[in-house]
């Protein structure tokens, strides 16, 4: 039996992160404060071709906005 999320093309890492997000958002305020607050990050990914960066993408945590609103 194939897991449904994998069938939908989601990797284990993404799946587990989504689950963790869901759990965090379900926590009561007191516990949410205690439970690892997600630190915002913003990194840049550059794809290279023939020795030169060709594309640049800004990576930010998925659903960060909701997390920020939750706080």
């Amino acid at each position, binding site marked *: *039996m194939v897991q449904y999320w994998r069938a939908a093309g989601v990797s*284990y890492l993404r799946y587990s*992160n989504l689950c963790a997000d869901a759990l965090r958002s379900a926590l009561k305020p007191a516990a949410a404060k205690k439970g690892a607050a997600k630190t915002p990050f913003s990194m*840049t990914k550059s794809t*290279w071709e023939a020795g030169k960066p060709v594309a640049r993408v800004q990576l930010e945590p998925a659903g960060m906005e909701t997390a920020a609103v939750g706080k």
Partner: protein
Amino acid sequence: MQYRCTVQYIWLQFCEVWPMCHTVWGLVTTAFQTPCKSLTVASSIALARRCSGPLPAPSLGHLLPRPAIAPERRSARRLNHGCLLIAVTPPGHPGELRSPSGCSLYGPGTMTSRVALKVAMRAAGNSPGAAGALGASLSGRGSLWAPVAPAMASVGTSRGQSSPTAVAMEEQVRWVNLKVVRERMKTVSNIGKICKAMKLVAAAKLRGVQSLQQASRPFAVGMGDFFSKMDELEAATTAEASKKDPTGDKKKQLIIAVTSDRGLCGGVNAVIVKEVKLMMAEDEGRTPTGIMLVGDKGREPMRRVHGDEIVVSFKDVFKAPVTFPQVCMIAEDVLSRSYTDVILVYNRFKSAMEQEPVRKPIVGLSTLLESASVFDEYEFDSDMDSAQVFVDLFEFQLATQLYNALLENATSEQAARMSAMDNASRNSTDMHAKLALTANRVRQAGITTELSEIVAGAASVS
């Protein structure tokens, strides 16, 4: 006024001839309150060349005006390493240009670079650039002169031979070098303060990131232990694979080089770059290799040599403390590329003083699936395919090892920065102490010269 010619032979062993001439000249000028038209210099050409290299011959004319003495008395005697000074003094003068305070005006090595500067200015006329160059060649310390040249420009332009303003200008020039040294002292101490502050910041950050790194280690070690069985198996399978595929065509490796985003942290990044280059050299291009750069500092050195191999780079990874979701994004990028082997290269944190570069190969998914039988002793959920568990496990392991590697490297970076900044601030303290000594010496030399000029002036008047 009748002038009597006195000939002084001054033997010098070093290249301080021009400044020496100038001091004597200055003494005469001050004593008589006239431009010294009666002092001339004849120098050994060899010496002039030796002192300055491109010392321009006409500069002699600027240095000292043509002598108003009979040619037969102007006997310039060449000495091997010395020069001849002919001084014309008024009647009643002792005829010796000796410093009244007894300071060794004539001895070798008594010239300060400040005096050399004044000579240079005189020699170069109103051209500060030329004066700077000449001053540099005279003192033999090029670097110290560069900042003086602009200061001289203002002093040198309006200088007359004997006007009262000229004397005032000379006074300014006398302290120029001291000003330069003091400015440098200020700069050095400011940089020292910055280094010290950076050290403190690095120490504070080190504590934070070290606790994260220690918390992540059990996960990485646990996963490593679990997969340690694989190591032998992997060796077996690779041997088998090499039998099937001797050229290693199917193999494709990804090197993940972990560096820092910021510099000023000792050799932490250089060793990683070196390690990756070594790996590439060892492989000799047999295996198709991709390089992933995590952190910005590996980018330039890697691009120069292995630019074509770089497939992707991440920067600003360490801006905020590294989190697992962040690492998952990098790990997913690795998963999206089809590589059979993944090798992590990072600095392992041993202690605040010691970090070592390590290569950590991560068991590839294909190898894992091929050798799944090793894990037969474990029980799997009946409704789940064990292969899927392995896929999950592989992904999780990749992210965990990457997370640990990033934290180890971040800890090493802070530790290295701490010790580098500690060294730098200590160096700045040493440098400041040395400069303070120089400044005091220059100040005292200035005072001594002024005193001797005053005393000589008083002696000649009385």
